[in-house]
């Protein structure tokens, strides 16, 4: 016990003593930030700083989630951080002076301080609608630390919860806390996390594996990427705690093949964690050892299905396995395996650090904690937002998202990606929670304005499912293709009125007979479209 405490203290001291002096500019260089010129902005800032002869570091960080405000630049230094939106390569240099003095900037419509108070004309965070409505726990550090520096993460509190349990906890305590908190998985199935960990721990077989599902392959959702780019150490800490609790000694981070930046930053984070003794043998001097490998997916929506993902790690074509056996009993290479989603594990450090009681204050009476949502489509302020469970689509789209872009009317919301439902405006006030009327999926919210054709959307979604069907089971592979063909005929309008019934019948077959969640959920968008938008 003594050694863990001692080693942790040494690491923390080292982090403190190496704290950079002087101001730093964090450029929001997540993948969406980079798409609109974040790296160029960073380069311009460095040039400007050099020209002025200043000693200011420019760091490429993750993003805050305010995609609509990218590129954002945040000043870290004395006092409260200040963030400036809408910085471009051409105005970056010109913005330097104002940013460094925390003054307002005419071409940065949204500039604010990360405090409740305003200063120098810069408003506080509460006056920014996109942020004011959020409860940022997982996102707390995103955009505000250097994702490629483990010591920066440690200074922000990372690995504190892990050190705590390694010093004076034990696995059953961890499981008990998670069980009490009621934490459920955030990948879409909302399965109790503690049940998996406990099952794996109890199952015979060594080694036990912990697999992080960072595949996030569906269109309209990008929150896991956001976490990996912005706060990779938060995920690693959650992973380590989970492994400790589940009795696992080997882990895999399975990252979507297109999420190159996530992969890069996680690789670096893993290397750094290994170099400071947070991954490897006898972590922080304790009896807990854990090795981590990264794997890059090579495409395919089905990889998000956990057993297909296991097949892929084992070197086979990604196709789901039959269950039972469940992965906690017989998963990777037939060994007990826990598979958790990125967001799920990112919940763990704060939960362990602050306790189940605290966690239960979040959310509704039924479900606890926060949830990340990706806002996109015809919404004024697209981005990644974290809210307590139980908030409504109206909150997300109107309060946070600023309503429909361009002033059009809202026709529908696609909740949960291509496996999700098309929700009519009259249902916007339903609370967003697992087990509700509409499945949340992994949290994709796509607003569709009244220029959209529901039939066209449904066709697009079912075509996506048909193309992404792994091909293993007949109802999904054949059924989705046949559904797509039927909807195409419906779109062309030259069909007997019975086609809708045929589609509905086939949808039922696909939903009930398919092997995995992909096929089972594939007809939802079509079914909800037919049900709520009968006129189309």
């Amino acid at each position, binding site marked *: 016990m003594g050694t863990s405490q001692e080693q942790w203290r040494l690491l923390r001291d080292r982090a403190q003593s190496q704290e950079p002096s002087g101001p730093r500019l964090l450029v929001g260089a997540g993948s969406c930030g980079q798409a609109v010129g974040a790296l160029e902005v960073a380069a311009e800032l460095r040039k400007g700083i050099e020209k002025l002869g200043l000693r200011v570091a420019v760091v490429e960080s993750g993003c805050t989630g305010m995609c609509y405000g990218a590129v954002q630049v945040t000043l870290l230094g004395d006092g409260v951080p200040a963030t400036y939106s809408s910085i471009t390569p051409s105005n970056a240099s010109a913005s330097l002076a104002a940013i460094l003095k925390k003054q307002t900037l005419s071409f940065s419509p949204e500039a604010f301080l990360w405090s409740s108070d305003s200063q120098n004309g810069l408003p506080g965070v509460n006056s920014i609608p996109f942020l004011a409505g959020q409860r940022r726990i997982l996102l707390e550090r995103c955009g505000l630390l250097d994702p490629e520096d483990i010591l920066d993460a440690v200074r922000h509190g990372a690995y504190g919860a892990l050190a705590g349990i390694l010093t004076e906890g034990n696995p059953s305590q961890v499981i008990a806390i998670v069980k009490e908190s009621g934490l459920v998985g955030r990948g879409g199935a909302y399965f109790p996390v503690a049940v998996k960990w406990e099952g794996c721990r109890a199952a015979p077989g060594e080694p036990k594996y912990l697999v992080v599902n960072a595949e996030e392959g569906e269109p309209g959702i990008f929150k896991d990427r956001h976490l990996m780019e912005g706060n990779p150490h938060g995920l690693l800490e959650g992973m380590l705690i989970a492994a400790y609790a589940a009795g696992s000694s080997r882990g895999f981070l399975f990252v979507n093949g297109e999420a190159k930046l996530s992969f890069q930053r996680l690789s670096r984070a893993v290397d750094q964690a290994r170099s400071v003794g947070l991954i490897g043998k006898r972590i922080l001097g304790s009896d807990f050892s854990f090795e981590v490998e990264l794997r890059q997916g090579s495409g395919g929506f089905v990889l998000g299905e956990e057993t297909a993902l296991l097949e892929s790690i084992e070197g086979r074509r990604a196709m789901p396995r039959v269950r039972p056996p469940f992965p906690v009993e017989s998963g990777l290479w037939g060994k007990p395996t826990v598979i958790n989603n990125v967001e799920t594990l990112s919940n763990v450090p704060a939960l362990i650090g602050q306790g189940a009681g605290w966690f239960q204050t979040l959310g509704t009476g039924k479900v606890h904690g926060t949830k990340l949502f990706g806002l996109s489509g015809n919404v004024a302020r697209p981005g990644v937002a974290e809210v307590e469970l139980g908030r409504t689509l109206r909150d997300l789209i109107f309060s946070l998202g600023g309503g429909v872009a361009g002033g059009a009317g809202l026709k529908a919301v696609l909740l949960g990606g291509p496996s999700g439902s098309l929700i009519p405006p009259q249902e916007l006030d339903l609370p967003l929670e697992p087990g509700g009327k509409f499945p949340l999926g992994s949290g994709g919210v796509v607003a569709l304005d009244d220029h959209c054709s529901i039939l066209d959307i449904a066709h697009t979604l079912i075509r996506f499912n048909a193309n992404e069907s792994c091909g293993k089971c007949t109802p999904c*592979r054949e059924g989705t293709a046949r559904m797509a063909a039927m909807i195409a005929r419906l779109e062309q309008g030259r069909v007997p009125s019975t086609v809708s019934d045929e589609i509905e019948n086939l949808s039922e077959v696909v939903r009930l007979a398919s092997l995995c969640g992909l096929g089972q959920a594939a007809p939802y968008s079509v079914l909800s479209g037919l049900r709520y938008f009968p006129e189309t």
Partner: protein
Amino acid sequence: MAGTLTIDDVVVEFLEGETVLDAVNRAGIYLSQLCKEPERPALGACRTCLVQIEGVRGFPASCSTPCRPGMVVRTHSAEVEKVRRGVLELTRGMLTPGDGEGRKNLAQLDQAIKYTSISPDAYPPIHRYPIDESKSFFVLDRNLCILCGRCVDACQQVQHIGAIALIGKGHETRVGVFGDHLMESSICTSCGQCVATCPTQALRPKREPAPVARRVETTCPYCGVGCGIVLHVNPQEQLLEMVEDVPENSSSRGMLCVKGRFGTGFVHHPSRLQKPLIHKGGSLVESSWEEALDVVAERLAGYRGEEFAALASAKATNEDGYVMQKFVRMVMGTNSIDHCTRLCHSPSVEAMLTSLGSGATSNSYIDYEEAGCLMVVGSDSSSNHPVIAVRFRKAVQKHGAKLIVVNPKWIDLCSYADLWLRENPGTDAALFSGLAKIVLDEGLEDREFIENRTENFEEWKASLEECTPRRIAQITGVPEEDLRAAARYYARPAHGGSCLIWGMGITQHINGTANAHALLNLALVTGQMGKPAGGISPLRGQNNVQGCGDAGCIPDSLPGYQLVRNAEARAKFAAKWEVPILENEGLRVTEMVEAAMDGTLKAMYIVGENPLLSEADLHHAREALSKLEFLVVQDIFLHETAEIAHVVLPACSFAEKEGTFTNSERRVQRVRRAIAPIGETRPDMDIICEVARRVLRKRGRAVAGFDFTGPDQAFSEMASLVPFLAGINYQRLEKGGIQWPCPTPDHPGTRYLYSDGFPRGRGKFVAVHQGTPADELPDEEYPLILNTGRILYHWHGGTLTRRVEGLLALAPQLEVEIHPNDASRYGLQSGAPVRLSSRRGELTGMAKVTVAVREGEVFVPFVRIEESAANFLTNSAHDPSSRIPEYKVCAVRLEPEPKK
């Protein structure tokens, strides 16, 4: 019984581990199960076996739902039927009917459709695929494919080959091979496991399916693995091209290779011998049995003792072998009987008899699967023992075993190996002594085993003095660190034990016996013997080479390896056979050739062997055998040796007779008659008995000892004389093969040997000396080393496989493998004709440029194609103690051949 559940209101019992589908099937309720191969875990792909289970949401697939006590299952509620019908309609919609062909019998899918009133035309066809006819035995017709995935599972998880896979995704998913090319471009070995499991005939034999009148379970006639096969006989009394595998067979577990699955066509080949032939006026002319038998008896009666010798057949049954050696010893008064083991494993047997006291493989195929380390030495198992190679691949892929391949040539197994030790040809004795030295230096030996189970350790240890890793690395060309790694893997496997497996690469050298001793020393010093998953296995070549030796077709032993030197053994047989048994050992094959050459051997009776293709230095062998005053050959084809015989007797093939074969894991298995004898052919045993009776009569001796009522009686007589077979009889064999030793009728048979001790008492370390690597090494005139071996598609010299059209199509030419550097020196490209010559002969073949062989070495399989065969070139120099010829190394010259 594990419990009961209710299916459609009927209480059904289930066993531990059974699924709901198992219980449904047992209850006799029909449920379609298109993707379920009975012997394989559920794939869960076809979704046509859905049921309703009380308290369970939705409609679970019964194939992957375990039974639980008290479960209430409904298979035919309206709701579940509706869903199943929907799935079957989608499945039916996948078929694109062709132009009338192939649609006659969709097997399991048709049955499913018949039972479920679906609308057959719910969906129009989407795809039309060209039929892939590139493989010789079967086609892939994707228009009939329902993507159940069984073929892929068979290829990847049963055979561990991975030639076919599902490729593409969504409704573009299809069965295909790497690169989406034709199947012939792939690593497919034509084993047919996929064809056997296909439920729709999308993968089907090229020959039109025919009605099956009879199914007869028997044992494969090709290699020593001894796979179970079921021959299909049509109403015209002909074997169908494709055989069925036998999942219950413990040796093959439902696996087969291309020869086993598709290679029985030789049985009906028009060139089968159908009548006796007698050499008259310069040619062989047909005769009656009466005349031929009389000539044979008349002539043989004139020879006895050292004037006569016989070769028995390792392709024939145990009973044939037993009767043959009885004839030789009892009637002809000599011990000069031998068989092809002389040309394959005699050094192994010699060394094992010296060190252990028994010449058999110690362990079983299942031990290979469970081993933590497999060291495969001088054996291209994927070509020669394909189904054993599956076990190796499975050990590696499923259980993480370490695989060490020791071979100068790249072989298929190298792709699965952790280590490939590519030793210089002929340096194996040094290599294995070097490994043993490392084991001792690093303290990896098994002290307890050495102490309690072995002898001569210190003397042997002293002999290793100079086998330092550095020196051994120099001699063998294997890097020191690889030697060390191999020693560590082998001595300390992570799980189970280590299996040491070897083939002709060890034995067919002038140092053959020394090589085998070096292997045994390594197994002894590490204690990798006498336990499950750990032991020694010289892989036997012919289907019954084990049994032929067991039956006593060797010049120094009576049946059951009871030495002729041993007076007690002689007395036992003399009492049973009522004749004295000679004490002096007979001639070995290679000595027979020499004795024929010098005229002391005057007459021979050769059964089921073709020495004029299998001997080394064929020109020499032909000259010798041509000098015989009388040669009788008994076989199924008129091969090279039969052509020079005075009388040729036509024998039945394996499909036309009863008997037993004993495979490489000592498992005695039944051979059963599937069809009536072709033409006037007779079973070997019947012919030998008839000859014996006639010779006895001519000699005026009592005509007794050869009046068996059938093979079962011959087996009983042998079992009564051979303690390790004493508990085996035909009745017991009906329930499946039995592994000897099986001393009593209630003994279950023996999976591995030497758990308590060795037949000779303690295992003996034998110091070995690495002699000159080979008798003939390259020089200016003959600058290349020739290595010989076999290929998957031909059996040995090819007498059988050249007569199976589809096999010949897969390997129609004699390929001379040559390294790219040599090829460019000679200006050759793959496909170019070449002439290869040695001091003894020449052959022509087709160059195959490959890095599988080293620079300076060429490889030629010993199959004869047209007029060319490797053994025209090979050297008859032999190992002094076992007399095996050096097939593996000789010096040759290569010349590009002008295109014909």
